[in-house]
């Protein structure tokens, strides 16, 4: 086995490790394993990017990688925390997205489609717009309604639903528009597929999940988020 094959074997085994907090997907599918290489001093080094700086799974993941290194005969192997470029949910693989959805966790709306959303009014009717969000069967009309709702929340979110304890105000968010995009507005419901979903809470059961509510089936579901 060449050194390259050896390092690739380490990487494959590290990528197959389950994530401690989302055990239905692997570290490879989550997109947090950045590299596996032989460092200048001859030691094997695995580059790992935490989802969030304070993610409590960091020590468990680091130890699990170290165990793989030892198991592969690299007791002097190291784990390097790579903070840059930062992890984003865009790095979750298609297989990872499918597995998350099967477990009721909405995969993220990928960044490309988030960026195009601000131009949606221009794109309506154009054949390319239906391709901007892969993995869903959403038609152009659905996208239009998402954009309309986003505008509505900008106009009405502040004053009309702000009573204390009024859940509506929490779900809608006093900030519409761009911040709602950050909350995952338009993320399809993993239960019924509807895109009529709204932010419920920016913070969920783990730091990398926020909570959304589906207006169709009324389920509250987590969505993977970058912030």
């Amino acid at each position, binding site marked *: 086995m060449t050194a390259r094959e050896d390092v690739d074997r380490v990487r494959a085994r590290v990528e197959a490790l389950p994530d401690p907090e989302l055990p239905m997907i692997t570290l490879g599918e989550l997109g947090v394993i950045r590299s596996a290489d032989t460092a200048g001093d001859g030691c094997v080094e695995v580059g790992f990017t935490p989802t*969030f*700086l*304070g*993610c*409590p799974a960091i020590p468990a993941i680091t130890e699990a990688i170290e165990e793989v290194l030892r198991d592969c005969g690299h007791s002097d192997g190291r784990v390097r925390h790579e*903070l*840059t470029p*930062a992890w984003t949910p865009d790095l979750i693989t298609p297989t990872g997205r499918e597995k998350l959805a099967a477990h009721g966790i909405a995969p993220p709306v990928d960044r490309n489609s988030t960026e195009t959303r601000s131009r949606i009014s221009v794109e309506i009717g154009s054949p390319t717009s239906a391709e901007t969000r892969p993995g869903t069967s959403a038609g152009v009309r659905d996208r239009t309604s998402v954009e309309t709702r986003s505008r509505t929340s900008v106009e009405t979110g*502040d*004053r009309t639903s*702000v*009573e*204390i*304890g009024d859940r509506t*105000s*929490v779900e809608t*968010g*006093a*900030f519409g528009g761009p*911040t709602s995009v*950050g909350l995952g507005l338009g993320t399809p419901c993993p239960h019924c597929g509807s895109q009529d979903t709204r932010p*419920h*809470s*920016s*913070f*969920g*059961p783990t*730091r990398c999940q926020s*909570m959304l509510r589906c207006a169709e089936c009324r389920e509250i579901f987590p969505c993977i988020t*970058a*912030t």
Partner: protein
Amino acid sequence: MREPVTTTTRPRDADLAELALRLGDDALVLGQQLCQWITRAPMIEEDLALSNIALDLIGHARVLLSRSGALEGSGRDEDDLAFGRTEREFRNALLVELPNGDFAVTIARHLVFSHYAVPFYERLAGCGDAELAAFAARAAAEVGSHRRHASDWTLRLGLGTAESARRMQSGLDRIWPHAAELFESDPVVERLVDAGLHPRPDEVRVAWHEGVADVLARAELTEPAPDWHATGGRAGLHTEAFGPLVAEMQSVHRQFPGGTW
């Protein structure tokens, strides 16, 4: 006894170590304070929100304190710095050690802090220290979500009932004299700014004020105009509330030094 801090540290590293220590202490103390809300917040979503924000901040503190220890060359790690220092050795701004008060006071404190932290970290992300810059780029995104949370609640309380607006205003009045310290300069900051390793405090202050003034106007709240401002935290002079806070934070470590679970 701990070995005395080595004196061979380069001046630039000593200043950077001090910067990382200040930022790390801000994050650590604020994170510790927010943890006290767990099971006491107005709704379960807020238990999760405040504890997740605390988690981010403690994560930031771990990176920053580790970096500070490495830069000062003393061999102190994050735990030594968090749990092994006395009250007078902490360098956090006084804002973050102010007691939680009611929910509105906590939100006011976080409004002031997060609107400062976002522009600060955004600028620090372009600084000349690769490790601090990489940290700051990621931290800016994370504190951005804290800013959204605090701003949303300020609006909700300001525009809610007469009582919620009264409490929010009262929280702001309580917190505001502690904002100015975040933008103070001293010889350490001046040297770092000159070396391209620190944002200009005035610039950060302008960005901060634009942000908070916008939220307060939309929330129909009055920006307080205090006739005094607090100072001293960066020099280790803390408020009455800080001693008990540090004692609680360090109690387990003191009882079981080096303990592992």
